[in-house]
């Protein structure tokens, strides 16, 4: 298996030989900043483009195809346009908070990137409470939405923000519980531990039906937490025009837009890490030959492949289902997902203790 440790370590060594520790820190920070921003930009562009293409093909049409091959520059044009568009602040708004909200959303999205293992040995911070950290940070994102909705001084925004507040907050529970199933199986919160525990098979396959149930619940909760259809009540277009970001324009709106996609990426990355083994290649029992072939595929490709597969699933949901009503949304969580995932967690615990999993 390839590991990026060698590369990162050599950079580290090279730097520490040449510069004082402070400078090393600064240079490394700069590298991380540049990488993170680049990742953001590229992810935003690619995901939006992907979504449009997926939507188009499900809807028997072509989708963007006039700018560049298969329209891949379409989103670049959109981004550039959004940057160049006037960023309005309504007169009646709470101007400070109004302009502050996109930053919060962005910071939250960025912070959640920290523990994600993009490849073997490529992780910004392998925090020892990994998944707990991610759920903590993602619970912050509701704040940005609440602020945006309230500060806009617009009824649609406020309604949308309230809805999304209740929604995100509720679905955090079942997301957390399904994350816990994996924690129970692994016995660690650290992302790297979780990935390594799946060396001989992904949890999804090793863990019997309870893990599959947990996976499904996680997917549903992830969709809801990122405000995606069919849970996109916060920006329900046919009800609240544009929901909590009704009053945002230009770059500020683009930041919300981008954050939405980054959040999708993050939850899908977490999902891929927990259930599909992160950057671990696909291994089958003791087919050594096969496993070797799989090992030749770089770990980052595995990671991104899995993540994008989950992203595709979430997009698939979006372009198929009608939206739930707000009370049904909460009923779904409180009456179905939460009891099921609690029960499921106990089941997984039994499996884990009895060592019934593979």
């Amino acid at each position, binding site marked *: 298996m390839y590991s990026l440790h060698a590369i990162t370590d050599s950079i580290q060594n090279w730097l520490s030989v040449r510069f004082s520790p402070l400078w090393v820190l600064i240079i490394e920070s700069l590298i991380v900043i540049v990488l993170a921003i680049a990742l953001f930009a590229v992810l935003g562009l690619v995901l939006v483009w992907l979504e449009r293409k997926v939507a188009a093909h*499900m809807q028997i049409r072509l989708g963007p195809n006039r700018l560049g091959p298969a329209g891949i520059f379409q989103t670049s044009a959109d981004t550039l346009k959004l940057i160049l568009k006037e960023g309005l602040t309504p007169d009646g708004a709470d101007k400070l908070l109004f302009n502050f909200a996109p930053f919060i959303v962005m910071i939250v999205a960025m912070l959640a990137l920290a523990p994600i293992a993009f490849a073997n040995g490529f992780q910004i911070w392998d925090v020892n409470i990994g998944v707990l950290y991610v759920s903590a940070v993602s619970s912050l994102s509701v704040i940005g939405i609440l602020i945006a909705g309230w500060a806009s001084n617009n009824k649609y925004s406020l309604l949308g923000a309230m*809805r999304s507040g209740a929604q995100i907050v509720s679905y955090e529970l079942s997301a957390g519980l399904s994350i816990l199933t994996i924690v129970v199986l692994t016995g660690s919160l650290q992302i790297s531990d979780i990935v390594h525990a799946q060396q001989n098979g992904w949890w999804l396959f090793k863990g019997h039906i309870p893990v599959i149930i947990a996976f499904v619940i996680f997917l549903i909760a992830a969709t809801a937490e990122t405000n995606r259809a*069919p849970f996109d*009540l916060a920006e329900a277009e*046919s009800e*609240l025009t544009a929901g909590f970001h009704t009053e945002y324009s230009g770059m500020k709106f683009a930041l919300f837009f981008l954050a939405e996609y980054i959040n999708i990426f993050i939850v899908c990355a977490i999902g891929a890490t927990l259930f599909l083994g992160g950057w671990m290649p696909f291994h089958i029992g003791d087919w050594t030959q096969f496993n070797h072939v799989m090992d030749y595929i770089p770990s980052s490709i595995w990671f991104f492949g899995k993540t994008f597969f989950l992203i595709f699933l979430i997009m698939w949901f979006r372009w198929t289902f*009608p939206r739930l009503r707000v009370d049904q949304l909460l009923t779904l969580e409180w009456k179905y997902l939460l009891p099921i995932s609690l029960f499921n967690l106990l089941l997984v615990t039994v499996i884990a203790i009895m060592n019934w999993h593979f």
Partner: protein
Amino acid sequence: MYTETQIISNSNDELVVNVGPQHPATHGVLHLVITLQGETIKKVEPHLGYIHRSIEKMCESLTYRQFIYASSRMDYLSAHINNHACALAVEKGMQIEVPQRAQYIRVIMDELTRIASHELWWGAMAMDLGAFTPFFYAFREREKITDIMEETCGARLTMNYMVPGGVMTDIHPDFQKKVKEFIELFKSKIDEYDELVTGNIIFQNRTKGVGYLSKADAISYGCTGAVARGSGVSCDIRKLYPYDIYDKVVFDEILETEGDSFARYMVRMREMRESVKIIEQLIDNIPEGEHQAKTKAVLKLPKGDFYTRVETARGELGVYIVSEGATTPYRIKFRSPGFSNLSALDQMARGGKIGDLMATMGTLDLVIPDIDR
């Protein structure tokens, strides 16, 4: 500049929200003033007139040949059927005998229009409920119909094909073949619609028990079309007061008795199948002959008043012409189906959520220019 009376709530926890005139779910420019308590709707007050084009006044200065085209701009989704109603009114006044062939063509066109209209409704309603893809599937079939229309009538939406005494031009030679092809295709696609939307659990939860309208209320509000039939009121003009050759074709009047949004939805879905049935019966039997009766160049209706009604995709369209014997009508009133149906909206939406309002409006299938005229 803006002087529309607005009701400002005095109570503390009520919120007054404007929905429309520019709003994705109002299908045009309906303006609803909604009083909310939390997310629960306390009151819905429709404000009309954002597309009031004074068609009635305008028609007073148009001749009987000309005014028909204005009617296709009213309920543009049932343009043919509107034209049909106007043509029938003039024919009734002048006692013109319409040739059989023209009658067949008219009915086929009507039913095609009905399918097209229902398709659009289906797509738009799914869109209101947040599902985007059905819209595209619906338009795929609808485009087939518009292509057929374009080939025969020369336009896609506002065909202006019916004239007093028949239809403007004979059908295109390919017409029958294409319609049959379309019917075959459509029959398979409509099952897809059921798979995608009707059976969907979310959709059913969103519509069942939502926007209830009792039978008594439906009558009292003068509802027609699918709205009334969803509440169990039999009101299909094609059955009750058949015009042209509707008395010769076999079809069922669709009735559902639940009175909720899902019932209205089902009425329309089943109606599409009925329309297919009607077209199937007619398409092979279009008699030979004239497509248009000989009429005078200048039409003059005798003194008196004439009321004709047809079943558009939305319900009963009445054309009430008061004539003084001149070349132009003295007064024309279009009794539009949407107007009455809309008046029942408040009743239906009260107590529901905002999402319910959208579902209810979706099943009302409002076409605002038809309401405002």
